[in-house]
């Protein structure tokens, strides 16, 4: 099926400049996706600026060279380099040049230099019901689930083409009928103290993602008003499955009740989550569970909020860390850390603050065979073994802090 373009859209596509190139790409995507038309979008979040190879750089430079500019506000996801100079990446020569050119090309297209995977905590918060085109899996799932705005899982090439045209194919999660929950993820039978713990969110997110795949579900039995917990759940779910949208009954905007999330009736299918399933999910997050030492600690996937930095610094309590610790965040938080003096205090204790990028998209961790990385992030736990070569030991934030100070795994020993 060929999407029906308006006369105005056809006129743009018939041109020879960068806007025409972008419009033809969006129209081709609509045809391949089976969408019948394009719809206007309010904003975009662009995940295309990490360097994978030269053609991606030339693609962005071609658009920019033909004069393309984004038509809607467009924030940028992480790049391959920390342009603030807070941290160092092991990219050299050609690769470093190309990673920098990639980031510059996206700025030339008019995107904002946010360089964060948590744009929703950097002031980019579309209204409920607004259609947008967002990339980066955790940002997509937060945008749909927590903000109630509407986006599909946009990938490289298409996200920037949508931003330039201000249009997106009308299909998938843009359409209300595809946002209805098809199953209940029932965690109400789990112990109350687990359900109120920090660690429950990434662990249950990982389990949810593996069981949901690309289906929309509604979670029953979790409560929170802490956005950072919803962020951790979504990031873990979108790493282990193709999750674009989840609902939590009584918490997220499209799920005031189970029935509301199910389009007026409780979904037919229910997955009852047991304690054995939770233990299994928690074990799967670690690949180096029996390690007797750790070589590094990384936190901040998605990027840490100012509130998360405050908790981290409080737990650290002025103690020096014994292994390298990477705390990844965006410029929106970095300025707060500079103003309060927290960055300097943390660096004095041995913590590296990382801005603009993160440890799984670019080489940063010390080169080491058989290294063990400890993290509290379900997303780092998922990607670190493949992307960094480190084995992963998963734990709550207080476990990561105690282990960083001790230089060896301290699991649960921080709690009474």
């Amino acid at each position, binding site marked *: 099926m060929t999407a029906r373009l308006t006369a105005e859209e056809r006129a743009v596509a018939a041109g020879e400049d960068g806007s025409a190139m972008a419009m033809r790409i969006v129209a081709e995507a609509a045809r*391949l996706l089976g969408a019948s038309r394009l719809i206007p979008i309010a904003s975009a979040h662009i995940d295309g600026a990490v360097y994978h*190879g*030269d*053609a991606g750089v030339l*693609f962005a430079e071609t658009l920019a060279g033909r004069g393309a500019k984004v038509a809607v506000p467009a924030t940028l996801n992480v790049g391959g380099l920390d342009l603030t100079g807070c941290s160092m990446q092991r990219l050299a020569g050609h690769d470093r040049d190309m990673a920098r050119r990639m980031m510059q090309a996206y700025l030339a297209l008019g995107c904002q230099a946010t360089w964060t995977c948590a744009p929703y905590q950097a002031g980019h918060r579309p209204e409920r019901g607004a259609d947008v085109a967002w990339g980066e899996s955790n940002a997509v799932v937060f945008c749909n689930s927590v903000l109630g705005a509407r986006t599909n899982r946009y*990938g*490289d*090439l*298409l996200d920037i083409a949508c931003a330039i045209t201000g249009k997106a194919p009308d299909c998938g999660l843009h359409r209300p009928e595809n946002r209805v929950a098809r199953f209940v993820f029932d965690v109400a039978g789990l112990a109350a103290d687990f359900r109120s713990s920090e660690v429950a969110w990434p662990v249950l997110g990982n389990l949810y993602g593996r069981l949901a795949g690309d289906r929309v579900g509604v979670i029953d039995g979790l409560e929170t008003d802490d956005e950072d917990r919803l962020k951790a759940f979504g990031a873990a779910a979108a790493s282990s499955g193709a999750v674009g949208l989840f609902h939590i009954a009584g918490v997220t905007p499209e799920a005031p009740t189970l029935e509301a999330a199910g389009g007026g009736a409780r979904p037919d299918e229910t997955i009852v989550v047991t304690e054995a399933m939770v233990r299994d999910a928690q074990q799967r997050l670690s690949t180096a569970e029996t390690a007797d030492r750790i070589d590094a600690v990384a936190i901040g996937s998605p990027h840490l909020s100012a509130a998360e930095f405050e908790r981290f610094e409080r737990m650290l309590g002025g103690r020096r860390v014994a292994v390298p610790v990477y705390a990844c965040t965006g410029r929106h938080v970095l300025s707060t850390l500079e103003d309060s003096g927290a960055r300097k205090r943390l660096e004095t204790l041995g913590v590296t603050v990382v801005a603009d990028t993160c440890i799984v998209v670019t080489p940063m961790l010390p080169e080491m065979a058989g290294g063990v990385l400890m993290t509290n992030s379900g997303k780092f736990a998922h990607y670190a073994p493949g992307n960094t070569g480190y084995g992963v030991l998963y734990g709550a934030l207080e476990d990561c802090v105690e282990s960083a100070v001790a230089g060896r795994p301290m699991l649960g020993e921080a709690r009474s």
Partner: protein
Amino acid sequence: MTAAQARIIIDGGKAAGKALVLGAPISFWGGVDPKTGTIIDVRHPEHGAGTAGTVLFVPATAGSSTASTILLELVHVGRAPAAIVLHEPDAILLLGLVAAREMGLAVPPALALDRALHGQFAGKTVTVEDGTIRTSSG
């Protein structure tokens, strides 16, 4: 001679090559080396096979939306398949060809053909023209 009529999804003109029929879905990101076209996913049944210059029969794709970028890189370095035969249109993968065409690169044709009909071409040299896939005479 064996022949099948497929649906043209991306028009890339005539093509010919040895048929490589994949026995399992593939994720291009992490599954295919963007510099060589070799299948690098160790769990894939065709692990180690080269896709460059083949008529590549893909039963299904899996995984990341970075697939489009990997296919774009392969076209850019001249290591793309000669033609791609899918079971059904795959927007994420084929956007790599759409972008390559916009950059002025010659792109391979992409076709849709019921995956049940892929196996008959395995290992044979085939030509692709106007949506018809046929084994070379002789």
